[in-house]
């Protein structure tokens, strides 16, 4: 092993690291104070097994403990002791204890939940604790006379996890109710079906060997008694669904199912009462049971996905520390207003969107970007609600709260996108509807034919025919595949705003990249200033900084370190060209040389006279150009690999930039992109897209959400690089968060898998129905065989669609794989 990794978070640790903990007699390195505290707490509590059984590392332990600040955890959570706040998530029990519902951030597997349960249950005063590793929900019961809730929360934090109060929303309560109802129906159907099967065996045997008519009649009556609750209670959803379908005149898959169950039950009841003829209680109940099982599985998968989507809005704290005249004061998050100064302790979550003041902060934006590596944010930079502050306490000024935060916008956009039906699903629904109509017609025809051939068997054959056909691949599995795929992508920091975009993404032949802010990261640096006229360099930089202070373009970052002493007036943004505005009463332009030259109608020194290959922009006023700036841009992490991966998949990549030729060429060479277009205005970019489309190509455009919006709108599928702000203004189909561009290849990969799964399901559906329908129509299938066949097919396609939620780790997070494998082998040894 060349490099050690941290015992707790598996981050690489230099071999010379000082920190370590001792576990079962072995010295194991840890990376930082926070991890050391968490690991030590875990080992001291006798819970070292955690490191043996966990299958993924927890988020790096939040918060550091320093000697000067030995145990700050408890006081941080005291706000949660306020009765007004506890009303939302704590219930009082009859025996004087209290129960709190929490969500715990950082729980990734069952070992994490075991760790918390064991660690907290050992505390005096805690009555019980249960942590669900899938929903990350924790229910804690404690005795308020012996311990305070804030102390328990502090202990959870010390183990390296972040607790949040959990108020159940309606969606979730609905999901829990649905799950319980469905399970009850399943159990009634299952137990009842087994009983009826035993009676049916006796009746079949009796039919061959002879049976006392009194006993036969008795057995049929008992079957009727047991079958009634199964059909009426467990089968109710099918009847309701069929009725709903018929009312809107689009027969779905519930119609033949309900028809078959209803007909089999009604005929059996009638025959039981008149005392002769066949009974089909066994087939009817078996059908109800198997189908309920398939629906139950589909629902379980749906709820899992729901949990993933909802994670967005839920991981927000309820209290915040507001600074009033430098004095920290605990307030509810709802009481915050834009402009408030808020203190966030290490390990706590930013309660609102805002800008950092005073100092830098390491921020874990995993909720937004899917990357758990903390990002360094400098003073003045924006932080979004839901990201977790690591290492040091940070102060920030609130800009947006509640429903205006980026997080809230994302979850709104996601809900909207998931409600919208992509073209494939619409098509599948139409086909399913026709298919069902066809089956009903076929049932009538086959029934009529059999009536004339063998009237006794006609009913059985029609029943089998209705039961055996399976449109599940269309009606159930296709929408499920899309829902799962969009949720998986969202968790990796790729938000699909228009669900049809997944389908388009799979067909893309050419990807067009913007350069600045897309292939380069957001940190643009000023490398060189060239002065053209009488204005000196300091003044030129000040004017530029004043103008750029009003811009959201990544270029503005190059000037952000220069102090602005004059406020600019009337700054207007010309997308793709630059900015215009007044500073100290004079009119200035900053941007592309062309744009600046037009203001003074005098030519700007051509870009090739300015040395270097960085991005080149100019500053000028009405009279003459003033200065030229060369900006240095760093390649965004993962960019080279994305280009390579796309090329391997046969997708062409090209750069379309507004920058000068030399800069773009140098950049394209560095990334290995052959085709590049420089000095393009937004209109030129759009016509480039149109040209490609006219040549029959499907174009994806990756660019800045605001400055490239016309091009994004023109492309077949558009991907905007999101910075977490002004999301609603973006006109793109997809928004990508996070620094690593490799999320893009993930998105292409998942789109491809989704379409493949849908195709597989459709092929299976066609094959199955082609085989099953003739068999049923010719009378080879008994109704119970048809019930098993249809249920199996239904389970198969649903399970196949849900497989998408278990995709391998993303390219972004798999980088550390080698390291974690070495650890796990070490951990086995431990």
């Amino acid at each position, binding site marked *: 092993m060349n490099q050690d990794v941290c015992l707790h978070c598996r981050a690489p640790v230099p071999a010379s690291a000082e920190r370590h903990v*001792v576990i079962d007699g072995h010295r194991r390195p840890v990376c930082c104070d926070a991890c050391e505290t968490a690991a030590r707490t875990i*080992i*001291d*509590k*006798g819970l*070292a*097994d*955690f490191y043996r*059984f966990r299958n993924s590392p927890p988020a790096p332990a939040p918060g550091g403990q320093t000697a000067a600040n030995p145990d700050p955890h408890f006081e941080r959570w005291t706000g949660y002791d306020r009765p007004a706040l506890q009303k939302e998530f704590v219930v009082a029990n009859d025996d004087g204890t209290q129960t709190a519902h929490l969500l715990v951030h950082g729980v990734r*597997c*069952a*070992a994490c*939940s*075991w760790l918390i349960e*064991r660690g907290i249950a050992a505390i005096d005063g805690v009555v019980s604790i*249960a*942590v*669900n*590793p*899938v*929903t990350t929900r924790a229910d804690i019961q404690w005795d308020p006379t012996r311990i305070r809730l804030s102390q328990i929360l502090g202990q959870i934090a010390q183990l390296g996890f972040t607790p949040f109060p959990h108020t159940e929303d309606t969606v979730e309560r609905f999901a*829990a109710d649905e*799950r*319980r109802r469905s*399970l*009850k129906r399943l*159990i*009634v159907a299952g*137990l*009842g079906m087994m*009983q009826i099967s035993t009676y049916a065996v006796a009746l079949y045997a009796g039919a061959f060997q002879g049976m*006392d008519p009194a*006993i036969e009649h*008795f*057995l049929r009556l*008992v079957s009727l*008694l*047991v079958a009634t609750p199964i059909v009426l209670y467990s089968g109710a959803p099918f009847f309701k669904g069929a009725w709903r379908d018929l009312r809107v005149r689009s027969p779905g898959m519930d119609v033949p199912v309900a028809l078959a169950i209803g007909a089999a039950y009604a005929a059996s009841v009638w025959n039981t009462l008149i005392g002769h003829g066949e009974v089909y209680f066994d087939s009817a109940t078996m059908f109800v049971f198997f189908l309920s099982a398939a629906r139950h599985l589909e629902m379980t998968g749906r709820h899992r996905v729901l949990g993933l989507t909802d994670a967005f809005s839920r991981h927000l704290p309820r209290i915040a520390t507001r600074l009033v005249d430098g004095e920290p004061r605990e307030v509810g998050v709802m009481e915050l207003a834009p402009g408030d100064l808020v203190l966030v302790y290490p390990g706590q979550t930013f309660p609102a969107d805002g800008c950092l003041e005073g100092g830098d902060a390491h921020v874990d934006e995993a909720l937004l970007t899917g990357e758990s590596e903390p990002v360094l944010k400098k003073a003045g930079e924006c932080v979004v609600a839901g990201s977790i502050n690591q290492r040091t306490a940070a102060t920030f000024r609130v800009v947006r709260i509640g429903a205006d935060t980026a997080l809230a916008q994302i979850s709104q956009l996601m809900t909207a996108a998931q409600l919208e039906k992509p073209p494939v699903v619409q098509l599948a629904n139409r086909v399913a509807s026709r298919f069902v109509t066809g089956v009903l017609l076929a049932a009538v025809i086959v029934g009529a034919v059999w009536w004339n051939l063998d009237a006794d068997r006609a009913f059985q054959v029609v029943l089998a025919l209705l039961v055996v056909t399976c449109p599940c691949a269309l009606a159930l599995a296709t929408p499920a595949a899309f829902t799962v795929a969009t949720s998986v992508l969202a968790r990796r920091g790729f938000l699909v705003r228009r669900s049809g975009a997944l389908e388009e993404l799979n067909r893309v032949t050419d990807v067009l990249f913007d350069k600045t802010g897309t292939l380069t990261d957001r940190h643009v640096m000023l490398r060189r200033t060239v002065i053209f006229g009488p204005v000196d360099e300091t003044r030129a930089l000040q004017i530029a900084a004043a103008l750029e202070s009003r811009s959201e373009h990544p270029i503005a970052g190059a000037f952000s370190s220069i102090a602005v002493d004059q406020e600019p007036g009337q700054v207007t943004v010309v997308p793709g060209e630059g900015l215009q505005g007044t500073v100290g009463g004079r009119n200035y332009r900053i941007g592309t040389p062309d744009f600046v030259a037009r203001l003074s109608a005098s030519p700007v020194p051509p870009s090739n006279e300015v040395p270097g290959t960085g991005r080149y922009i100019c500053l000028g006023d009405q009279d003459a150009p003033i200065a030229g700036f060369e900006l240095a841009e760093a390649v965004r992490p993962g960019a080279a690999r994305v280009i390579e991966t796309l090329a391997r998949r046969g997708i062409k990549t090209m750069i379309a930039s507004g920058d000068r030729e030399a800069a773009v060429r140098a950049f394209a060479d560095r990334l290995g992109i052959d085709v590049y277009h420089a000095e393009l205005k937004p209109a030129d970019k759009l016509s480039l897209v149109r040209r490609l489309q006219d040549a029959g190509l499907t174009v994806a455009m990756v660019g800045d959400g605001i400055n490239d919006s016309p091009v994004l709108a023109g492309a077949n599928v558009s991907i905007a690089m999101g910075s977490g702000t002004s999301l609603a203004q973006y006109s793109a189909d997809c928004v990508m968060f996070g620094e690593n561009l490799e999320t893009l290849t993930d998105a292409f990969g998942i789109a491809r898998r989704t379409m493949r799964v849908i195709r597989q399901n459709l092929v299976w559906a066609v094959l199955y129905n082609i085989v099953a329908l003739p068999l049923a129509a010719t009378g080879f299938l008994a109704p119970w065989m048809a019930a098993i066949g249809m249920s199996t097919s239904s389970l198969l396609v649903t399970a196949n669609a849900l497989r998408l939620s278990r995709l391998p780790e993303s390219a972004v997070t798999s980088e550390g794989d080698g390291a974690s494998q070495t650890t796990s082998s070490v951990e086995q040894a431990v």
Partner: protein
Amino acid sequence: MNIIFILIPLGLMLLIAAVWAFFWAIRNGQFDDLDSPAWRILLDDDRRPPGVDEER
């Protein structure tokens, strides 16, 4: 064979008892988390915390 006129109703009563037991379990949240119990058996609950400081 008349015994079945007693045995089958008895069986039905057992069925009702079983369904009632399941409903009770569902109502009490026994089926709400089906993932962690499978893991829990792997993790020892009876390991004592090691004595004092293990750094020597």
